[in-house]
């Protein structure tokens, strides 16, 4: 927030988006609606994070079957294709340790891998129909949106507010994400992305969904994929 000028209203946008989308998701844990008014009445846990800025711990499981395109096309359900994937780390440290050595929170792992990720997939961030981005806290979602270049630094709050009512923009965390569906460490983002591309996301389905980005991680270490709908399907 010091670096990009992000405000608590931008954090609120992430929490509101999560609840609004979770309300349509039968699997989601937190479906009660949230407005800016009710957001700002929520108690702080670790300021600037309030209770609704933090994910909800949950027990659950997802399974993703990875196989060759040839075998996948032989199955009953249409496959999602991995158009590109990658992992980025930082220095000799791991995970939370990077907080002690990173140069800029506005340049998280996504900043360093986005060019290759999108180039290998042959698309740009504006081509995404949906993005299932790791959101253990609202602030991490802002970092991922900006790190992967879905908008300029400091613009994530505005993008989240705009995409809620503009289907031409990438739809951010259509399931409600880890913030509201539940914290399955990000594997539920992968499952949601696959369902979106299979057209099986039900009430959270993004219309004509062809390209979805998924990521896990928020600071200096993390992984990401771009998944696409099978053109033959």
């Amino acid at each position, binding site marked *: 927030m*010091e670096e990009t000028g992000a405000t608590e209203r931008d954090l609120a946008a992430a929490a509101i988006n999560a609840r609004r989308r979770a309300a349509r998701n039968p699997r989601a844990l937190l479906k009660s609606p949230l407005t800016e008014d009710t957001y700002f009445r929520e*108690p*702080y*846990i*670790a*300021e*600037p*994070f309030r209770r609704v800025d933090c994910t909800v711990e949950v027990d659950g499981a997802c399974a993703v079957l990875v196989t060759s395109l040839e075998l996948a096309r032989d199955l009953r359900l249409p496959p999602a294709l991995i158009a590109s994937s990658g992992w980025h780390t930082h*220095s*000799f*440290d791991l995970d939370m*340790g990077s*907080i*002690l*050595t990173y140069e800029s*929170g506005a340049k998280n792992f996504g900043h360093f891998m986005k060019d290759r990720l999108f180039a290998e997939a042959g698309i740009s961030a504006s081509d995404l129909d949906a993005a299932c981005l790791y959101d253990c806290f609202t602030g991490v979602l802002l970092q991922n949106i900006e790190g992967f270049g879905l908008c300029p630094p400091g613009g994530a709050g505005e993008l989240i507010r705009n995409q809620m009512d503009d289907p031409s923009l990438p739809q951010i965390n259509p399931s409600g994400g880890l913030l509201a569906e539940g914290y399955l460490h990000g594997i539920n983002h992968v499952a949601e992305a696959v369902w979106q591309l299979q057209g099986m996301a039900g009430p959270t389905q993004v219309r004509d969904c062809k390209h979805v980005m998924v990521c896990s991680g928020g600071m200096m270490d993390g992984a990401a994929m771009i998944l696409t709908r099978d053109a033959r399907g």
Partner: protein
Amino acid sequence: MGAEGLSLQNFNEALSRGVIAVSICSACGRQQVIPSVSCFSCGATQLQMKEHNGYGVIFSWVTCHYPFDAAWQAEVPYIVALVEIDGGGRVYGRLLDVPAGFRLRAELPVNLDASETAAKSYPVFRLRGK
């Protein structure tokens, strides 16, 4: 100490005396605060331990309204700061006596409060010039 790097035991022992211990990489010169057997910059394992003067600036902070440990319930809300110490490296610590209504920001100068640090066995900082 010396070529053994900075162990958690060394780090905690220094804290109990009100001092932050750091290590300096013999290969690349980098200073780091995290107890480790190797340098985060170059991976070298020849690290020299050194006592730091406790001066630095705020890198980031949160105000805890919910205590991480139940023993700190009476202290909420308290501030946990990530401090970049002079010469490089970051360390977490409490930040005490921030005046009500004072707007914290990155880069504000702080220094270690040795007696509070020794009493608590975790780093305790104060704003410099406040």
